[in-house]
């Protein structure tokens, strides 16, 4: 699981162009949106595509993303339980 969390942090930094953020700065339980990492609705769309492309998880209801993208911990648990690739 820790490998997956590390992988998610790397992907988020790279794909969302978070040039000033390092992997160490993202805590497993930190909020990704709002006051935490400060991601926004466009980032949410990027993450939905990433789930589909990299882990074979299709989110049919974007509202699901609110819960799934709460933190790295929550994301990793969801991916581990639902991934098809």
């Amino acid at each position: 699981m820790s490998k997956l969390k590390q992988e998610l942090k790397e992907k988020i930094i790279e794909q969302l162009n978070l040039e000033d953020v390092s992997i160490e700065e993202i805590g497993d339980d930190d909020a990704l949106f709002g006051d935490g990492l400060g991601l926004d609705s466009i980032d949410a769309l990027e993450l939905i595509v990433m789930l589909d492309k990299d882990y074979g998880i299709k989110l049919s209801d974007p509202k699901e993303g609110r819960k799934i993208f709460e933190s790295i911990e929550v994301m990793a648990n969801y991916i581990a339980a639902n991934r098809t690739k």
Partner: protein
Amino acid sequence: MKKVYIRGVGSISSQKTLDNKEFLDEITGYNDTVISVVNPVYKDYIPPAAARRMAKGVKMGVVASKVALEDAGLENVDAIITGTGMGCVVDSEKFVSAIIDNNEEFLTPTSFIQSTHNTVGGQIALGLGCKGYNFTYVHASNSFESAMLDAKMQLEFDEASSILIGGVDELGAHTVKIHRLIDHIKPVEVSPANLLDSGTKGAVFSEGANFFVLGNAKKENTYAELVAVETFNDLPEENLLEAVKKFLIDNNVLIEDIDVLIQGNNGDVVYDRYYNSLSQGIFSKTQQIYYKHLCGEFNTASSFGVWLGAKILKTQQVPDIVALNDVKTSKLETILLYNQYRGENHSFTLLRKC
């Protein structure tokens, strides 16, 4: 009709042009066929959260526009009008590549949103909170002139009192590759000093952003009056002389009144003949200068020419590096600019000292 003035400038180019206190004091040399801009520290001008989705062209436009506004002593304008020949090619390439690489699946929104031609104008407006007229002209090497003409007409008829205009284009790796394949880029490296003597087809490709604050009130720090702009999609070489004569007559200017002719020579042996017909013809006794050996060629490179003309009129100095002939004028009051790219999209611009 009101007169139109250049009141502030901001330039990001292959030279160190962003600091308005300097004027080509130090030349950045090269020996290449494609050259990039001298990048400012973008973080000094754009918050990281806003900059993270911006490709280079957007950042260049935002920074150049901020510098132009500061130079004019303004915090906002009535309108923003941008010219770009290729738009945001980096994100366009990214988006199209993603379509191909992923078999038309998994398309992400960021590069698509940022790939449109009006992204630069939109991001400038968002940063300023400017809800006024916002328009982007995409018209090859007449893109910047189209923006300038639109602003000029609005200011003349007092529909606005200050307008931010600019020309911006960025280099994209795939676009450069395509232009190299079709011989639009020089086959061998050249340096600024031998660009016009290269004897080869094509140009040194580049990028840049040159922004200006235009206004219809003359202020203390005004650079120049923008007297006239005229564009031509097609202008056969045999009609060029008549066209420039008519342009001058229409603006009550004699050939002898032109103190300096600024031309867009890019060293292409096929198309520089248009410039040569003016420099070796009716303007042979006029002081001539050129600039694409400094900034390279891109669809809105002529905006660098306007920057150069405005700086010359304000500082009353002509840097030696831009001399095209040995003629030295006794006064620097009226400047004519002529530009074209590959024999198409010609433009004349007339600037006058305030």
